[in-house]
């Protein structure tokens, strides 16, 4: 629950609040769970999703994906650390920022299906929509991520090439 809320919000404090809210809600409303409608994990994720969405609506929303370019662009480090671990860590951090920048309806599909590894059916139960809707939102979310990642790589390459020419 904590990791789901963290992936959705990017805020450890918010994620802890949501986690606590989810389990208190379970304690109070456990009799509302129906095994015929969803698995326990999907039910819990659905509760967490509602709490996260409510908190995100109350607080400052994340920048839309397209506007990330200016604020997130960094000067390429031509003397980059050759260690693969550092590159992987940077890549993971970048992907985390991009996931957070997705519109919420695509972000929750990516987080539930690809990061929390829920099935389409469980994700649909958590999102209270049909399986086909989950598929299409996941599809669109991943395409947005791929486009942005590809654009970032091309911009970095151009900047690095430009820096080398200057040297």
């Amino acid at each position, binding site marked *: 629950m*904590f*990791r789901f809320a*963290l*992936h959705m919000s990017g805020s*450890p404090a918010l*994620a*802890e609040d949501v*986690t*606590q809210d989810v*389990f*208190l809600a*379970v*304690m*109070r*409303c*456990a*009799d*509302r*769970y*129906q*095994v*015929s409608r969803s698995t*326990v994990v999907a039910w*819990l994720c659905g509760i967490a999703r509602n709490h996260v969405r409510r908190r995100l609506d109350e607080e400052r929303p994340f920048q839309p994906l397209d506007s990330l370019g200016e604020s997130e662009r960094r000067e390429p480090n031509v003397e980059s650390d050759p260690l693969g671990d550092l590159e*992987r*860590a940077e*890549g*993971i951090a970048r*992907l*985390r920022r991009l*996931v957070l920048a997705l519109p919420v309806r695509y972000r929750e599909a*990516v987080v539930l*299906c*690809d*990061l*929390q*590894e829920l099935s389409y059916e469980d994700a649909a139960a958590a999102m209270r929509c049909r399986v086909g809707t989950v*598929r299409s939102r*996941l*599809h669109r979310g*991943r395409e947005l*991520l*791929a486009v942005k*990642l*590809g654009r970032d790589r091309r911009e970095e390459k151009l900047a690095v090439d430009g820096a080398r020419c200057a040297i």
Partner: protein
Amino acid sequence: MSCRRHRRALMAFARQVGEPEGIGRARAHLDICAACRRWLDEQQAMTAALRALATASRDEQPSEALESDLMAAFHAEATARAAAGEPVAARPVAWLRWWPAAAAVVLAVGALAWWQIAGGSVSNERASVDSAVGIPECLEFAPLPLAFTLPAFERGEIVRTQIAVAALPVYGIAIPPDPVAPAVTVDLLVGQDGHPRAIRLVTSESQDSRSRR
């Protein structure tokens, strides 16, 4: 249009979620469509990247304060409910339908094993769960709050321990009026994963009946 028709199967293939329907035709389409090959390469790379993020995220844990805050909130909720005479935790009726049968099976198996260890004869007399462990003298097992969120009960054991009287509401038991001791003896029904599913109080009468057997 043809590319869109195959993208659903290709997405499932890229996400490695089994053998998707239509993947045969989609693979044949890849042989003639460079755009879809590039798209599939991108999505397979995206899968690898997202899995790396998911793996890296497994190290992210909430602060230690969260667990203590949550337990304090549970205790406060349980105490308030017990004081108001309400059930400590709402329990789903559907879940309750199967667990008594599972608990009875475990109790029967546990009782037979105890009977054999204690030197009792199993083959010449009908082993009775009730007479072996004195169930009529003990309170029955009651499911722990939130035990229904655990995996299905497959096998387990009964663990006897003592818990503080003040902690009884956390286990779904109201604090008795005028408790004679600060702690009580309980039996916990522990599942295959080491997590307890149910609890029962052990009275002094049931302890005596076991010692005489």
